[in-house]
């Protein structure tokens, strides 16, 4: 059975909670790119073989859950028809190569790293050197410091330009050995500047070292970040630089990435009828503010679609295919880092009609780029390791916060809420402004879903992990977050955001009455006291469940 499981994972089919009859098929979207025909195919597949919905992950995959194992090969066949694959989406391989959804349109980027991400994905897919690594291996390309996640991944890359001998040289700032998990680490910068010719050699060198020295025995700590941590950064850095020289010198044929930097054709789709001049539907201003970003190309915006914890129905997938054809001047969409999807190159003059169109398919909710759209991993909806229904909790928070119009509060925009259903960090709780991971709590013999809350995590230029604050029962998470917002409002300085305020607190540089995480903890403690089961039976039910809570897990597949 072990060998079948490896085979299954290598092809992108993951196990499902409490059963061996079903699989989750993880479809990779290299650099997040997805075309209308692919949306239509995924729509069809979700209806035929899954639950009528699909799910955007945090790593630019789109997942089909509760697929009958024997149907998986039918899905492979259909994916191939539209140029998609789930191969090496799970298992000990190079996982989907990510790129910022704003690469190519970001005002702060040095150049568009998308072609490099695509070339890297192509190079390692099916590459013999990437078929049996000690553990999975992840690349994240970004546009700039702000929009990426380069320090929380095995290899993170920010495009950079240097003047060398009077001419501009493209290259990258490369970060190695970061990652989120049961134990998370922040990545280290390899060198000031890595010229683009060295990108592939560096990638190969890092993977060769990991392949050679990575821990193949202790399955719980075999990601590359543990190797880097155990060995010490300087030693690892030296090894990489030496190995790179060897790679460069000993290749039998010159190996290069096939980077296609031909610019995409930008062509505003023709409109059959002139729909301009119509008045904006209700909610338009709010949506425009919380879901769209101005691009560096004048007259164009990128539009982020608000989903609930990444879930999207088959009808909505079809609707997106139409919307891309009608509104995106680049003819495709890009999935992002936070269980979402963006349409780019939408002309400013088309935004009202796009919004009207999105309303028709239930895709016009506001808040995509704000704290009101939390990340929730799949949790007990499908994952064997989950202890709580983190997925539903994310949806509950979003519904409540949109009802309260918190998406319109500019003080909250740059903060984030991220929820995992267990200590493994699929929900990326460690880098959230307010992060949660699930576990079980107990009063006497009665159990309830309980989350460990951390504060002050961030994934930008000052990447750091959040600090543990206190345990919050599932049914108290919403009031606790609202209380934190209230404390912030009482103590904020004029240009503070929630994120900057919490950042000062975790760095011991806040001078108001709340100076530490412990001060916050003391204020929140009364809110998290469990009532007795007789007083509040609902407290003992996790979200989405009508039977008493018990922790229950199956076997993970990390060790496969």
């Amino acid at each position, binding site marked *: 059975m072990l060998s079948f499981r490896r085979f299954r994972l290598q092809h992108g089919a993951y196990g499902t909670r*409490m*059963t061996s009859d079903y699989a989750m098929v993880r479809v990779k979207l290299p650099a997040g790119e997805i075309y209308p025909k692919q949306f239509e195919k995924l729509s069809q597949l979700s209806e035929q073989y899954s639950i*009528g919905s699909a799910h955007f992950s945090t790593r630019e995959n789109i997942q089909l859950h509760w697929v009958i194992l024997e*149907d998986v*090969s039918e899905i492979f066949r259909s994916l191939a028809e539209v140029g998609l694959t789930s191969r090496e989406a799970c298992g000990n391989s190079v996982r989907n190569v990510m790129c910022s959804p704003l690469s190519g349109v970001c005002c702060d980027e040095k150049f568009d790293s998308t072609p490099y991400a695509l070339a890297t994905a192509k190079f390692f897919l099916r590459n013999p050197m990437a078929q049996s690594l000690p553990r999975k291996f992840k690349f994240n390309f970004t546009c700039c410091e702000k929009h990426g996640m380069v320090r929380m991944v095995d290899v993170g890359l920010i495009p950079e330009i240097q003047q060398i001998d009077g001419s501009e040289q493209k290259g990258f700032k490369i970060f190695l050995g970061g990652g989120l998990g049961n134990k998370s680490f922040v990545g280290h910068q390899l060198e000031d500047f890595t010229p683009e010719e060295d990108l592939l050699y560096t990638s190969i060198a890092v993977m060769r070292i990991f392949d050679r020295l990575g821990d193949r025995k202790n399955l719980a700590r075999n990601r590359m970040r543990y190797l880097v941590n155990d060995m010490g950064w300087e030693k690892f850095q030296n090894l990489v630089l030496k190995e790179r020289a060897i790679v460069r010198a000993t290749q039998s044929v010159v190996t290069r990435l096939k980077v296609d930097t031909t610019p995409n054709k930008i062509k505003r789709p023709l409109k059959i009828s002139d729909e301009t001049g119509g008045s904006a539907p209700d909610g338009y201003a709010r949506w425009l503010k919380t879901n769209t970003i101005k691009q560096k190309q004048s007259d164009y915006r990128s539009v982020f679609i608000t989903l609930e914890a990444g879930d999207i129905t088959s009808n*909505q997938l079809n609707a997106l295919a139409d919307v891309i054809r009608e509104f995106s001047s680049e003819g495709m969409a890009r999935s992002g880092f936070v269980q979402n999807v963006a349409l780019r190159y939408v002309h400013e003059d088309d935004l009202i009609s796009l919004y009207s169109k999105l309303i028709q398919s239930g895709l016009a909710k506001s808040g995509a780029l704000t704290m009101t759209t939390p990340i929730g991993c799949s*949790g007990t909806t499908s994952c064997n390791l989950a202890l709580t229904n983190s997925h539903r909790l994310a949806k509950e928070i979003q519904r409540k916060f949109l009802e309260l119009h918190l998406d319109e509060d500019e003080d909250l925009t740059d903060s984030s809420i991220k929820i995992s259903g267990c200590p493994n960090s699929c929900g990326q709780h460690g880098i959230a402004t307010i992060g949660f991971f699930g576990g079980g709590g107990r009063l006497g013999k009665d159990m309830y879903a309980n989350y460990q809350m951390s504060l002050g995590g961030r994934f930008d230029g000052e990447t750091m992990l959040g600090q543990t604050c206190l345990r919050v029962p599932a049914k108290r998470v919403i009031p606790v977050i609202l209380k934190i917002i209230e404390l912030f409002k009482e103590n904020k300085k004029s240009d503070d955001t929630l994120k900057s305020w919490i950042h000062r607190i975790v760095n011991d540089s806040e001078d108001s009455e709340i100076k530490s995480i412990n001060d916050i903890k003391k204020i929140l403690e009364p809110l998290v006291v469990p009532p007795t089961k007789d007083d509040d039976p609902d407290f003992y039910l996790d979200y989405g469940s009508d039977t008493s809570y018990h922790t229950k897990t199956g076997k993970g597949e990390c060790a496969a």
Partner: protein
Amino acid sequence: MCCLTQSVKITSDIDSVRSEIRDNSISVIDVRREGDYKQDHIPNSVNLPLATLLSDDSPENVLKLVNSMGIDNETPVVVYDDTFGALASRVAWTLEWIGHSNVTLLETTYSNWKSLGLEIDSKIPDVSKKDHSMNLQSNILATSDYLESAKTRDDVILIDNRERLNYLEQHIPGAMSLPYRTLASGDKILRSKEDMKRLLDNRGISGDSEIITYCGSVGTLSGLAYYALKSAGLPNAKLYVRSFKEWKNLQKPTIKQEDANYWDLSAE
């Protein structure tokens, strides 16, 4: 290719239906609602709304309806709907059940017929009453009692054609899930024979097993599956026509996929 068993025709292709309509050599049944039918329909088709059939689907009444549509034992019948073939399948199966041996499904839906620009009409044809005989085919019907005893046999396969989430929530013990959406392909209400066989083979649905299909309430989705099985060369199929609704009302055992909150993954 050599084939010992006679190949059964399950669907009729658009071109042959058009020419047979011109030759007046078939009877075409439109199972949509009366109002839709009156607006426009395939020329010369007669209307038998599914609801009319379901209001009394006793063999005697079905025979009356068949006679009034001008169908006798020899009349080739083609049935169509606008619901991916499921309603048409339920009507076709009922005709087969009372002993009509020459009934097929139009390979596509009425919407697609229209979008191809094929001929439509709003005229209601004159039909003269015919006299069909009754020859009940009990072997294609599964009752709840029959199902309960058959289920225990090794050579019986039970298939649930509802959507996956409904299946996970509750199903007849031992049933496998094959959602009705899996059966179609593009504009066709059923996949090609080769694709259908591969899909079913993967699931171990093959050989001489007796196969019983069911769905939510009246045997439409499972009616389509009944024809899907036959199209793949699996003749030994039965329809549990009263389906899960009756099973539940009779308080017979059901089973649930436990310990997972799959409904919360749906974006509905």
